[in-house]
């Protein structure tokens, strides 16, 4: 009796969507355990936790945020290539709202002295955040309109903003890289309350996304539209509104990621901000087991996917792979991770669990 029960649990674990992302993560950490002594050491400083594991979580938070929004978009059988550019737009908007004086040619001296003051901001923080997020959501809405109502292929539709977005971000700041000195803003990316502050943001956005999709019918509708849009239409589901929501939410997530990233590096770097982050986000979703062809999705699995990517990067640095070789190595590891997902490996795991059960 107990044997069959434990085998049943084993079956349920291996068939869960979270199983493979966690296995991938575990394998990478296992690698660290063997090759990097002290990799798992976590120490406290002023009551806050530090260490490689915390670094993985903290540095992975931008991609985690993007991956949450990207999951919904990919589940509708779409993709959003513009999230990196939207991060840049968000950073530019936020930086400009805090310090619009950088654009002026000449400034009176009494204002000049505020420029590097860590307590100075032109607009209050809540206005900065609110306006930035509204702008980011509008970017997402734009993508959604092109895809849902313009019926443009998602890859092409979002490519427009991917390319134009960086230009817009630079236009906003008139091509200037605005340095950010305002400390409360920097806290978003650099702050620590026992754990890094950005982790709490990830948790909040995840919770909101989860409630929005799993405590309402939206999640099922997204999966239905992504699996078979014609059947969904015949069943009375408004595919356009669902897509609009997914892209808008994705833009919003990109906006939050832009806040975190710019607060972390304390500058609005319209050119480099979020470069290739859209690809990491897509990869995170894929590692999380959501298919590019849409349908079933798991938000948590996508976040684990983001951690997997970050764990690869952090591990490579830890064993001393130089930065320029990182991308190539990352590619190899990604191939290995994707191999884990192959039918052969899945069947093998299933056979093993069935044998154990028998």
């Amino acid at each position, binding site marked *: 009796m107990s044997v069959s029960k434990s085998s049943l649990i084993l079956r349920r674990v291996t068939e869960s969507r979270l199983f493979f992302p966690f296995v991938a993560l575990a394998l990478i950490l296992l690698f660290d355990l063997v090759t990097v002594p002290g990799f798992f050491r976590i120490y406290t400083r002023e009551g806050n936790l530090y260490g490689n594991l915390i670094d993985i979580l903290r540095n992975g938070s931008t991609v985690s945020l993007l991956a949450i929004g990207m999951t919904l978009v990919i589940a509708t059988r779409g993709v959003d290539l513009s999230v990196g550019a939207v991060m840049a737009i968000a950073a530019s908007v936020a930086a400009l709202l805090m310090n619009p004086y950088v654009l002026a040619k000449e400034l009176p001296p009494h204002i000049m002295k505020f420029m590097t003051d860590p307590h100075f901001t032109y607009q209050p923080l809540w206005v900065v955040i609110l306006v930035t997020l509204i702008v980011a959501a509008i970017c997402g809405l734009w993508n959604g309109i092109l895809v849902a109502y313009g019926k443009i292929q998602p890859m092409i539709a979002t490519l427009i903003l991917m390319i134009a977005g960086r230009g817009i971000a630079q236009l906003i700041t008139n091509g200037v890289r605005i340095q950010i000195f305002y400390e409360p803003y920097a806290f978003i990316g650099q702050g620590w309350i026992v754990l890094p502050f950005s982790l709490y943001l990830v948790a909040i956005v995840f919770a909101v996304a989860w409630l929005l999709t799993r*405590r*309402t*019918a*939206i999640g*099922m*509708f997204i*999966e*239905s539209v992504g*699996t*078979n849009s*014609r*059947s*969904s*239409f*015949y*069943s*009375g*589901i*408004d595919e356009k509104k669902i897509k609009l929501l997914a892209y808008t939410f994705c833009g919003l997530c990109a906006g939050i990621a832009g806040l975190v990233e710019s607060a972390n590096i304390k500058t609005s770097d319209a050119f480099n901000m979020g470069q290739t982050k859209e690809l990491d986000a897509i990869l995170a979703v894929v590692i999380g087991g959501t298919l590019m062809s849409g*349908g*079933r999705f798991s938000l948590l699995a996508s976040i684990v996917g983001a951690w997997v990517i970050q764990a690869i990067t952090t591990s490579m640095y830890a064993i001393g792979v130089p930065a320029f070789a990182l991308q190539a190595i990352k590619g190899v590891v990604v191939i290995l991770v994707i191999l884990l997902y192959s039918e052969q490996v899945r069947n093998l795991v299933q056979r093993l669990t069935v044998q154990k059960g028998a």
Partner: protein
Amino acid sequence: MMSDEYIIEMRGIDKAFPGVQALSKVDFFLRRGEIHALVGENGAGKSTLIKVLTGVEKPDAGHIILDGEEVRVRSPLHAQELGITTVYQEVNLCPNLTVAENILIGREPKRLGSINWKAMNAQAKEILQRLDVNIDVTKPLGLYPVAIQQMTAIARALEVASARVLILDEPTSSLDMHETDQLFRVMRRLKSEGVAIIFITHFIDQVYQISDRITVLRNGRLVGTFETASIPRLELIAKMIGRSLTELDEMSQIKLESRKHIKGEALMRAKGLGFTGGIEPFDLELHAGEVLGLAGLLGSGRTELAQLLFGIEKPDSGVLEMEGEEITRFSPLASIGRGVALCPEDRKEAGIVDDLTVRENIILALQASRGWFKYLSKQQQYEIADRYIKLLNIATPSADQPVKNLSGGNQQKVILARWLATNPKVLILDEPTRGIDVGAKAEIQRLVLSLAEEGKACLFISSELEEVLRTSHRIAVLRDRKKVTEFSGEVDEHRIMQAIAGGEA
């Protein structure tokens, strides 16, 4: 010697899937140059047997002897090399490639390393001509009707492997009468060339029309193999469904009884309703408690009429009234709100959402009508799903099974359940029994009548005239995208056939 008579001998085939014994000790013998019908209800094991024969599945036990020699079929490709080739129910071709490309892809005639298009087109044309099909092979396949696509699939199957055995899996389920005849001509020609054909179908008429012998499977077991000429129709059906046929006769009794419930006032009324390119303006009334049958050939405008009533298409002429009020908003969502439901003809494309569970598929339309935020609780969802699984006799291990794992007939029932869950007043059923087995067909027909008895108005569309006759109180006939006539009361098949066929008949 045995091997002279049979091209294929399958002996004692066993195959189990987790939880199901799909085949147990099945023998199947195929003679050279015969047309052999393989029949049985859904889940009888027909597909599995074919999959074993074509190397898609490996048998747990048993032998396959091809042309006197035992073989182990390793893969579908290997099967093709052995001369066994299959044309599946759903056409597996590329609609955006030309007909010629579809036939010859992977084996294009080459000249100097590049494709010799002229030779390729000529070759494709010739192959098709062998099947009596004369079309422009340089046009994309998708432009042609399903029948031509089917012929193309057969042409490809014959071309790829110099086939000795051709397996046709439900080839006629989307063909109309003429197209079916054309296919049968091709089958007879191939037979005379010595090709042995395994013909899987749900249409009993066609079994008798074309086959030499019949093998019946039921629940994964062999019931028997019979000479077509020596087994009467009723006996065959009894063997297939393994239960008495009297219940089928009960139907006409139920129908007569239920006639009493028909209300005089029209629930839904179309006046001069039509849309260009779809269906010409027509008048139609649907009454509560009534089953209105819609007969006509494929392409006669049946589906378009249904789509118009359900708001998939918007009319450009006429008025549609629901309970005396004129309808202005045409969309599926608005229709669901009015109490109209449509089970679409194309179960795979427009019906099921295959990755979602049975439960989710059942509540989908109901939830859509409630909107995003009035989410049915899990408990309510299970209640609804379990109720309809029981009511419609849906064979599924649980409500959480992905609907793609169900057989065709059960998928159809899931879609029916989806619409019944919205508690519609008007239920439009477009080919609800296509591609499903005799038993499930009877169940669905009975269900339609009992729904009418409950006071729903049903529009029943089917290409099987017998079925329309059996279930409908009144029958409207479409021809060439026009409503031509309407019959009520007792009508004989012959008069309707004349109406369907039009002037020529």
